[in-house]
């Protein structure tokens, strides 16, 4: 069925507007002067050099990367185990468990931030790596679980039965059939949790401290004080990194996974 011209116009405008602020940030990052302007009044790598030369920025970047990698790997492992545990579990039990896994999606982030702050302060984990990591594991869990649950559900039951009748013990069915077929889900889960963790700011900003901070939180603090082009340069790096990961997801599993995940989320009772 054809689309009305109005629909097309709105769609095309949005397809321009959605990436527009990001394009402008990238453009402004090449400004040779200390003012943010687009188009930039010239071209220089000055702010990128400043970023690379700053120990504080590089440390924040490295800490973010470490947190994101650890969070992605650990949540993905936890999610695979959980998905296997719930596979073919009684429907009621399964849906109750899934609701609990997806629960962090149902709370406003500002409230989650305060909740973690209070809890981690009691454990004296506030302002450090472990505290932020724990928060990120919890926040990433729904995003890690869903692609794996989707992938697992897409594995036809007859495939595991085929493995069994060909002689496989349950463990062999798992390693030779189920896990290889889960690969797209695992890849999506890793990339997805990495992005969530690497970008998270609303909850994380309650939990960072003088010894430990993440890149988005540093950017936020910096913008809050002064918006100079070094932030634009760092932001551009983040934008390109994210775009790269999106293309990687597209290559490895296809962007369709984002849509399937959404569908899965709506089928889980909330």
């Amino acid at each position, binding site marked *: *069925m054809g*689309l009305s011209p109005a629909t097309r116009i709105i769609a095309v405008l949005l*397809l321009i507007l959605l990436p527009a602020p*990001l394009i402008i940030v990238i453009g402004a990052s090449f400004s040779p002067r200390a003012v943010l302007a687009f188009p930039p009044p010239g071209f220089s790598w000055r702010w990128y050099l400043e970023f690379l030369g700053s120990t504080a920025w590089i440390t924040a970047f490295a800490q973010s990367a470490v947190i994101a990698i650890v969070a992605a790997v650990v949540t993905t492992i936890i999610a695979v185990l959980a998905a296997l545990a719930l596979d073919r579990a009684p429907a009621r039990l399964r849906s109750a468990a899934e609701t609990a896994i997806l629960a962090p999606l149902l709370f406003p982030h500002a409230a989650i*931030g305060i909740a973690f*702050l209070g*809890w981690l302060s009691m454990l004296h984990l506030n302002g450090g790596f472990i505290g932020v990591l724990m928060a990120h594991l919890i926040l990433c869990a729904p995003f890690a679980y869903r692609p794996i649950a989707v992938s697992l559900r897409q594995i036809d039951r007859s495939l595991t039965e085929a493995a069994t009748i060909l002689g496989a013990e349950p463990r062999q069915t798992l390693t030779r059939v189920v896990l290889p077929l889960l690969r797209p889900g695992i890849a999506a889960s890793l990339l997805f949790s990495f992005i969530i963790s690497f970008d998270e700011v609303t909850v994380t900003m309650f939990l960072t401290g003088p010894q430990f901070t993440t890149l988005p939180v540093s950017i936020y603090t910096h913008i809050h004080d002064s*918006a100079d082009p070094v932030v634009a340069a760092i932001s551009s790096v*983040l934008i390109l990194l994210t775009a790269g990961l999106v293309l990687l997801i597209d290559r490895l599993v296809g*962007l369709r996974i984002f849509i399937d995940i959404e569908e899965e989320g709506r089928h889980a009772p909330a």
Partner: protein
Amino acid sequence: MKAGRVALFAPMAMLIAAFAVAIGGLIWGSFTKGGVGLYADLLSDQVVLRVLWRTVWISALTTLFCVVLAYPLALFLARSKHRNLWLILVISPWLVSIVVRTFGWMVLLGNRGVVNMTLRDLGLIDAPIRMLFTPTAVLIGLTHVFLPFVVIAILSSLLQQDRRLEEASRILGGTRWQTFRRVTLPLSMPGVIGGASLVLLMATGAIVTPLLLGGLRDRMLGTQIYTEIFQVFNFERATAMAVMLLVVALVLVAPLRLLEARIRQTQEGV
């Protein structure tokens, strides 16, 4: 087998328990430390009431804008042959950190930002229009930040629809508009409502975007909580406000959830 399943689920159960303890601790703490009197104070404070009201209407408007704009885009994507290409333009900005995207709008909307400079260069204005640090800026920013969530949600339910239903409507004599109104739209309502409740939830709990684009004058609950903690250092008040935020989010989202359940009941017969 049973014991095996429990062991597999144990790590995920620990994450769920940690989250439950954090949220439970938040609510418990707000009553034990601050007490009911604290809530009475908050609810009689004109500033807090204004913040509360602003949170409600900005979140509601953001949700409305998101749905109205996302629908045509989702429709366009659902019908497009180059969906994957366009999806990159929707998903990449979606996954870039909120701080970076908000920063992009600061560059666009600032007094010396792209919009004001362009208008000045065109001779349309003499003095810059104040756009940053207004509720309008917050609305624009939040809509931009959350739009992709709704696009993906609606797209997912559009793609699930059998295209032949629309063809059936057309062959039965329905016009393009009638077909949309009576077939396409009703069938995509689960996606619309699912996306809308997600946006409503996230908008009420947003901190970064309202703080950077709205400034300290036009606060929302999230920003108020942030200020209480990091500027006033009043942890009890922040905790009580976080609980208020939970209640507000719950009250706003509940009708949408009920509606969603109702629609699913009639459409899927479950």
